[in-house]
């Protein structure tokens, strides 16, 4: 993740979002923009979790169904659904989430390494667990989520 992994009182800024009942978060340094759902052009024969491509001001950006990627049950699209456009390397990719909740500051010392989570495929993509107001936030390892797709 970002450079802010120095021990002590350092904080990590993350964008928290909902997938089903759970709250996930992505380090803010990856995030390019957050947009509303729009027409997605289906790409035949792409991996099942790739929803297709969108036209982002003349650029063609692939869009991933994050729930499907993490092996979570898919949810109906709602007016709250958003596409988080993250930038990795010099390419962008959109991640569909159920809702974007807020920008959080997580003190570094309140982030725990991921514990053994049962069964869920998403465990592979979690880099840490944070607690905010007794709520559990799962920190997502974006590079892993996206990186494996291109292999």
């Amino acid at each position: 993740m970002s450079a802010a992994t120095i021990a002590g009182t350092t904080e990590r800024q993350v964008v928290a979002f909902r997938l089903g009942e759970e709250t996930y978060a992505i380090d803010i340094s990856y995030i390019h923009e957050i947009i509303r759902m729009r027409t997605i052009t289906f790409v035949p024969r792409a991996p099942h979790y790739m929803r297709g491509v969108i036209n982002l001001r003349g650029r063609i950006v692939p869009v991933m169904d994050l729930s499907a990627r993490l092996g979570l049950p898919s949810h109906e699209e709602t007016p709250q659904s958003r596409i988080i456009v993250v930038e990795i390397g010099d390419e962008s990719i959109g991640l569909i989430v159920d809702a974007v909740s807020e920008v959080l500051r997580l003190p570094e010392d309140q982030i725990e390494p991921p514990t053994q989570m049962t069964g869920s495929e998403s465990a592979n993509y979690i880099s840490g667990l944070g607690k905010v107001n007794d709520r559990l936030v799962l920190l997502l390892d974006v590079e892993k989520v996206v990186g494996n797709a291109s292999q």
Partner: protein
Amino acid sequence: MDTSEYIALFLEEAGEQIDILEQDILQLEQSPSQEILNEIFRAAHTLKGSSRAMGFTAMGELTHAMEDVFDALRKGEISVSTEMVNRLFDALDTLKAMRDQIAEGGSSDITCEELVKSLRDVLNGSTADAPSSSASPAEQKHADAGISLQEHEREAAYAAIDNGLNVYQFTVRLAADTLMKSVRALMVLQAIDANGGTVLASNPDEEALDNEQFGDSFVLLVATDKPVDSLRNVLLQISEIRGVEVQPWQEEKVSSAPQPSPAAEATNPSPEAKMEESSSAEADRGGSRTPTVSQTVRVDVQRLDTLLNLVGELVIDRTRVAQLGREFETRFQHDEMVDSLLETAAHIGRITDELQEHIMKARMLPIEQVFNRFPRMIRDLAQKFGKEVRLVMEGQDTELDRSVIEIISDPLIHMLRNSVDHGIEPPEEREALGKPRQGTIRLSARHEENYILIEIEDDGRGMDPAHLREVAVRKGVLTRDAADRLTDREALALIFAPGFSTAKQVTEVSGRGVGMDIVRSNIQRVGGIVDVDSTPGKGTRFSIRLPLTLAIIRALLVRVSAEVYAIPLGSVLETLKIHPDSLQSVGRQPAIVLRGRTLPLISLRKHFYGESSGVSPCQGDQPMFVVVIGLGERQIGLVVDHLIGEQEIVIKSLSRHLGDINGFSGATILGDGRIALILEVADIFNNISARAA
């Protein structure tokens, strides 16, 4: 001196000179001429000067040694031999390596003593064999060599011409046994002076004439307004002068350094030319005296790429504006503002078209850039394999987008290597077959409609379809059954199949089975098509069709389900509207008969969305639309829901984050902002074959 800012310039110039040397040495070997020798000498001379000035001593050393060889050749002291050309090429390769090293790290540690020595040997070895002469080489070399002028001498010559005088080159021959040559020379000079002539320059120079450092003849450059014949007669009356040859002075012929054209300088420049001259005065580095200004500028490739991308965006927006205009028209009918919007949109459209065309042209390079290296390569390969090969090249000035040029080079090299290695038979075998000993490889390029056709044709042993079928079965590429079903042309195309290499033994150059399949995939990657035709015993011909540019193509837009797809027009043979009645079925594959030929049909709906519409790709009684696409000799029909029309599209690459997407070469943005994926026709054919196998 801080040379860093000059290095880029030096490297570029060095590259150019090395290219000239390479071509000229090759031509030297085939047909030496004085013209070539002069050019070659000049190139070596320039390179020597600039590398020394930049402090690259080794490079200067080596070019110097080459220059000496060219100089000796030019003066007829030695003659061209294969061994000599080999050594010159070795030296040239080393120069290239040095240049590359400098380009990478600013300096070069390649040494060249060996090479310099080998070049010196060429020189010494042959001077010893030169026709016996009492004169030493240093003396001998001045005879008949013309005059190399100093700058002030040349200016004096031009000034004389400008003043209405005639300038002649006098070659004065003394009797072989002349005792006091310097006295005769002095008498000649005085006689010219006394009879209305002015000696502008001499070869050797006056000091050498005084010291008797010349052979049987010397050359003078004389300006005079008197009839030249009377002057000649005066000279002939001096004792022991055996002959005087007079010819009008021509700078081009006798000089060794690049010269401005005397004609251009002597005639009155037109007003435009004058303006160019003055405006170029500051811009022209080195203060060259050339009055004609080059009408080209060097532009960074990246800048051109950026421009083309911007034009690409403009093309998209143009389509969008036109579409909006039409929508307004339907909504507001004939409103004045709508009319003027439509008018403006049409104008923007035309301008954009023109802009696009010109920028595309600016990115074009003659295919010469690639072809240039082949004569040398063929020569080396032929020597290596003991073949005799003549390379004939046509259409070197055919222009291609630079991105295509970059990609086409390697495949061509590979195919040419194959032709020399496997195609052309050894000279003895050819003779036994009643063919000329020397095989011919013809490499040609030309425009054809909206693509470039490159052909490589040899008159070698050709390929036997039956043999290829055997190999394919033996290597497990095909079953016996499948192999037997192939037509001859399809069997020939087997050489492009992965893992298929017919080389009886692996050779250093023709590779190890990573051959033609890579060639084909490289060509297909840029939207090209490669095809092979061969007659056993007669020869083989490869045809490569390449798009003119990679960034913008014409495509047929079709609708499948809810999406629009683009099929590159280069692969579209025709479109059909057929009735379900005419459907047939070959195996489980639907097909139609088109002009007596079975055309397999692929439903894109099924292919893309996996919808199980059974064998029949159509719904009910509705007629269906078929796009016939071709790849080489193979054809299939793609069943689509609807044909939308032809359009120019800007190719955008698909993100690698999408994963390994098979079947699409990219995507484009349509006028309404929607995305259309661009079909990769080759992938569709490959998928079909994979399924059939």
